[in-house]
């Protein structure tokens, strides 16, 4: 939990190109190094081995690209947003860049608690544009779609349909999908497995390339960009959290 004295910032970043092959953990280490290279005034946890107060949103699978990754970092004093964007990007690996930043209100809820859905653009192969369109249509109208899923080595058969909030064809071999993070985050691979059950022509569908396009936070029934919620108000201390217009 954040202390009142600190200055939490929410950073949005992209991960594109070959760097998509590094893991969530590697991304965290890359940021810790970039922060030190930028000589940011990081706030540290107390304890035997102090570490910078940094927390990330939902993990991105190794090999997936993203235009919408987020992290929160706490500084000991405020810094101009533009300086932060440039300084941090300069220390990141090629293909990773900071694309937005917000000075958060104190005690804003964490990304892990708040992110409610994830948008992906999925390039697929193994089928025709017509079969793909038909499979997506069938998927949308199906009341339930049961696919075998594996969680921590335990196999079960789940109905994934309620977790797919939106699915649409965006090109001859491209899909846009939005999946819920609750009760648990649905994997893109499970959506593709579900699509394969829609028709014989779709049975050989395969996921070729995945780009995470958006993450959303739900507030009052609306989907919000994570940089637009919980902004620090310029009002005096004790002012309520500013709730920005949501999508």
């Amino acid at each position: 939990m954040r202390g009142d004295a600190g200055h939490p910032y929410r950073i949005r970043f992209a991960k594109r190109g070959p760097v998509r092959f590094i893991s969530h953990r590697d991304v965290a280490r890359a940021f810790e190094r970039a922060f030190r290279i930028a000589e940011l005034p990081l706030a540290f946890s107390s304890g035997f081995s102090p570490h910078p107060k940094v927390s990330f949103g939902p993990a991105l699978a190794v090999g997936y690209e993203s235009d919408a990754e987020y992290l929160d970092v706490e500084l000991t004093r405020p810094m101009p947003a533009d300086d932060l964007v440039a300084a941090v990007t300069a220390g990141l690996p090629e293909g990773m860049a900071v694309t937005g930043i917000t000075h958060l209100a104190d005690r804003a809820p964490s990304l892990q608690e708040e992110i409610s859905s994830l948008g992906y653009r999925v390039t697929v192969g193994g089928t025709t544009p017509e079969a793909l369109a038909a499979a997506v249509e069938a998927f949308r109208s199906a009341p339930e779609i049961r696919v075998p899923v594996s969680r921590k080595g335990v196999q079960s058969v789940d109905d994934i349909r309620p977790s797919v909030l939106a699915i649409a064809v965006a090109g001859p071999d491209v899909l846009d999908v939005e999946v819920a993070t609750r009760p648990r985050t649905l994997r893109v691979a499970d959506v593709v497995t579900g699509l394969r059950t829609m028709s014989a022509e779709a049975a050989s569908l395969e996921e070729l390339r995945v780009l995470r396009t958006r993450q959303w936070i739900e507030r009052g029934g609306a989907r919000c960009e994570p940089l637009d919620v919980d902004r620090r108000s310029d009002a005096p201390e004790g002012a309520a959290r500013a709730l920005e217009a949501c999508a």
Partner: protein
Amino acid sequence: MSDLWPRLEPLLARVEKPARYIGMERGSRRPEHGPDRVAWLLLYPDAYEVGLPNQGLQILYEILNERPDAVAERAYAPWVDLEAELRAHGLPLFSVDTHRPASDFDLLAFNLSAELVATNLLNCIDLAGVPVRAAERGAHHPLVVAGGHCTYNPEPLADFVDAFVIGDGEEVISEITEVVGAWKRSGRGNREGVLRELATVPGVYVPSLYEVEYDGPRLVAITPRYPDVPAVVDKRTVADLADWPYPKEQLVPLIEVVHDRLNVELFRGCTRGCRFCQAGMITRPVRERPLEQARTMVADGLRRSGYDEVALTSLSSADFSGIEGLVGGIVDDQAGTGGVSLSLPSLRVDAFTVGVASRIQEVRRTGLTFAPEAGTWRMRQVINKLVSEEDLYSAVDAAYSQGWRRVKLYFLIGLPTETDADTLGIAELARNVVAIGKQYTKGASATASVGGFVPKPHTPFQWFGQNSVEELRRKVSLLRDDLRRGNAKLRWHDPEASFAEGILSRGDRRIGAVVERVWRAGGTFQEWSERFDLGRWLDAMAAEGLDPDWYVTRHRTADEPLPWDHIAAGLHRDFLWNDWQAALAEHGLPDCRWTPCYDCGVCTGYALEHVVASPVPPAGGSQGTGQVLGDQAAVPVRFLQRQVSRAR
């Protein structure tokens, strides 16, 4: 320009740790190739996470890329999953920097830091699309060269490597670049011509230019086939590390690797004279980096890498003559940066003082490792690791009193003249160390890590017959049983792996066929316990009609020609033999950095001298021999005059 990336990329989605193959580390280069530039592919023949941190490879990578007539890229052994994909798709080994096929380079330059990577060397050559045997290569194939400590006995790999480089690489790579550049400009004709030319470069050994003569199992001689080929190849040595502040931009990997931290080399060489230690023998004399240069390299390196840990590396870092001042300077430089941890690998217990301990603990602490190497004073006199029990206990006391909780202790088993009492002394020491720690903290722990001793070329123990697998196993179980009492933990190296290392360590050219058989049978990544199989090695020895015990467990005789007699580290054979006899008589030898020269042959033979950062010896500089060292004026050592900005 042939970039394999578009064809590799889809394969990477199917393999473990795909980021091993993407390059893009901070500090990496994408050099522009051209007909007027010699293209080096620097290969570490093991997995990326083991090879990336290798400092030797990174130093050469920078030096070559600074040259207008050279480019250097890097490659590592693809893990078995990617290897299978590459072979299935007809793709070759590639560089991680620009994903160029290995065969597009003029030289494949291997780093050989461990014996068991031998089969990976063959696999990498094969994956490059190059014949594994040097004799089968043509003018259009890259030259296969190798450097690193294992090249001090190059014979087991002599059939596969066109040229070995013995010793420090900083200078000789430029000379090789010039020879290969001339060959390239002349249209890369006759391969033997360029090899003959390379053989005239000091420090370069071209095995195909030597005749090997046997008498039954015995080696008789290795002699040059031409008059212009040297009968003995001497190692290369850079005289002053101050001239080589490399790596300037240490690579910062995107995934976790071993030694994942900034590494700054404090000095090269060691004169403690531990008789089991090949590195200490072959890298003489001591060349310390100037204190201020080391301090600047640490500060700059941390700033540009973003690392929060730095290791001060050498064969015995606490022996650096300016260690207390340097540690203090680093601590002062890092004040207010939010925590950097400092580690001193390879600590000598007699040089680790409360002063150093207290400065290190001002920054963040990492685990502490000491290497007493043997469990009894008698045994330590044999190996010339003259550390007293009192020294060990006071170092450990200093560490625990300054807040460390975990101490790791390194030992060797299977040393010459070792008795069970010596072996059990290891357990005794470890238990006593834990007891000292318990006085300071309830959570104190100590781990004794034991490895089976493998005798190495160019050391006084090169004549010693290694312990058999069974004998090493028996000693491990002695320790395991004994350490059921007390709180010390035990870890040990696989005795079977030590046996295979023994085959390669002192093998002759006939072992090449064994290496090839093990490789053909699928024996790659032999440094990895889950992939290692001694059975393959023994089968290959049997198939070649070679007796493993003749190579591994047999004591050598004084008059016997050794397979590395034509490779010189500068040490007189007489010195090594006399030191071997002194070992058997349990006589120690002092550290010649601070006491009179006993003429091992290196300084006198190569006109070199020790270079020290401070004229005052560090704590423990007397090497435990009881000699009293006076003030600095009385230290009988000469100091090399440092030249300001030496031209290169």
